């Protein structure tokens, strides 16, 4: 009987903490099924064995931070049939995207004894700014079930079942009382994509926005409400500038409030 060839899977790392690719190993219950379904051809975190490309599926973690990265991602795209980015770094730049709001040269000379050894790009960028991306799995870190779901959906030829609506839907489905309404805790949930299962509000914390903007994020309305709750402009800016600081509306809203905060600070200094 003809047995179809197992698809070859490669896992690539760019500027990141490794957490997202490790969630593949965290799959535990599903790991055997994954290993039985795909052939792991390149995954240095899991195995030293390397099978040459081309690859059917490439999972890409991390953002583009150096000139070398920018070249390597082109090679990976050329070698991959399907390229899926995993995690906030790969899909929106990640926490290191904060570099884009600062002066890199100044940081390098402050941090490193020999700044001349450091070769880095001025700006961090998500993978999609360099190559075509077939699917983006959001989150910091990703939800391991989303990863398995994307692979399963691809192999079954169906659409992945991953939400694009807000975290609020998850809170309400699990019966968590709204932390913003009941406690006055600022929460990014209304503008953040669901997927984590609304973990933070379930533990009385506001959502941190790990999954990036939801499908229709009205950040301006949310920020205006936060101001009513007594949140300072600088703190509003910081909330948008975290794991997904570079993604679309979060970037715009973060910058809008960073400017407001800077203007406010100048105004306060003036009378002295």
């Amino acid at each position, binding site marked *: 009987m003809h047995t179809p060839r197992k698809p070859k899977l490669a896992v690539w790392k760019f500027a990141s903490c490794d957490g997202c690719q490790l969630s593949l190993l965290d799959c535990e219950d599903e790991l055997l099924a994954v290993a*039985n379904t795909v052939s792991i051809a390149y995954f240095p975190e899991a195995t030293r064995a390397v099978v040459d490309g081309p690859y059917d599926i490439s999972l890409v973690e991390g953002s583009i931070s150096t000139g070398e990265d920018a070249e390597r991602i082109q090679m990976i795209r050329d070698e991959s049939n399907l390229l899926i980015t995993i995690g906030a770094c790969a899909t929106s730049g990640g926490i290191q995207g904060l570099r884009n709001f600062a002066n890199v040269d100044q940081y390098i000379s402050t941090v490193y004894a020999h700044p001349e050894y450091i070769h880095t790009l001025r700006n961090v960028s998500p993978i999609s700014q360099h190559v075509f991306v077939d699917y983006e799995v959001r989150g910091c870190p990703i939800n391991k079930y989303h990863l398995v779901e994307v692979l399963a959906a691809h192999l079954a030829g169906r659409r992945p079942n991953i939400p*694009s609506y807000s975290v609020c839907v998850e809170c309400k489905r699990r019966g968590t009382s709204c932390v913003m309404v*009941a406690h006055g805790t600022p929460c990014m949930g209304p503008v953040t994509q669901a997927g984590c299962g609304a973990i933070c509000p379930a533990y009385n914390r506001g959502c941190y926005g790990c999954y990036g903007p939801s499908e229709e994020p009205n950040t301006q309305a949310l920020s205006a409400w936060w101001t009513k709750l007594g949140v300072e402009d600088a703190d509003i800016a910081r909330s948008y500038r975290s794991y997904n600081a570079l993604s679309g509306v979060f970037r715009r809203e973060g910058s809008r409030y960073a400017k407001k905060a800077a203007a406010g600070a100048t105004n306060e200094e003036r009378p002295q």
Partner: protein
Amino acid sequence: MQVLMREDFDTLIEKLQGADYEVIGPRIREGAIVLDTVDSAGDLPAGWTDEQEGGRYTLHKTDSPSLFHYTVGPASLKSFLYPSKSLLCRVYGGHNDFDVEEPEIEAPRRAFVGVRACELHAMAIQDHVFAGGRHPDPVYTARRNNIFLVAVNCSKAGNTCFCASMGTGPEATAHYDLALTEVVEDGTHYFLIDAGTKAGRSMLDELPLRPARAAEEEAGAAVVRNAAESMGRSMDTEGIEDVFFENLESPLWQEVAERCLTCANCTMACPTCFCSTVEDISTIDNDMAERWRVWDSCFTTNFSYVFGGAIRKASSSRYRHWITHKLAAWQEQFGTPGCVGCGRCITWCPVGIDITEEAAVLRRQREARQGEARYGAGTRTAY
């Protein structure tokens, strides 16, 4: 009407437990009064009361011994009768040869204590939606058939309450097994109790009751009257269908869209909103697939997705759809409005968008247009 003394309230809970019911009632969880298992009257939020405003909910402790002096919290009967997530079927096997397994429907025997009039009306609306047609929903009907309802007439109205104007409260008039009115006065604390069904009457026979005196009945009526007169909001329902159907192009929709987060909280908190979507998942080795029904909302993009994209792309069209359905089109579809005036969509909207206020703006816009048509644009100053 009969009287159940406060010190005998635990007997009611014990009798319900004895009848094999899990007793569910109001309990404080993480700063809100929600519905959860109650073992005894000691679990109820005695002395606690709530304060609600658009986008704001707070609890305060008072010296009162009353068990039910607050209005509805974020949770409603909906999540018990129509769970946010239900497994519809599981499929095992390969491409050509497979078995379909339908899961057994879980329908626990539950007695709800402290159910408000608006809740009962909301349940009646969901009864109509889920169980009224030719294809009754098996999950809903199984759960619905296994409950016992102990209503409590509201002793206060919240700032976001408007049941009086919707004709759905604050007094429970139908759909309950037992109805209570809590009276706390001059050092006495008792409940006026009445049965609405045969099951309720049998339960009355088991309780230590005495006939109510005229003064006690009057005290109970005063409690409800006081709640009815202190509603924080009101909805003018006169000709409300025209208010909406003649305002489909109102500038209001865009104005609300600027505030609306399209987060879906209003629909999830609403005790009558019933929309769901069906999600299929399969294991990576394709040995098993599951079909789930989960709560959905008309505020999500995928809700209106048809071939080629979502019909309601703009948040203005989503808000218009929701409120127009809730207050106007629902009437045509199910014979009642879809709103019971519980105020949850106002309180639990993270930015406090107010259904009564938006409906009032639309009404004024329509009246202004009618004024212009009748007397010419110059009379506009009246508004």
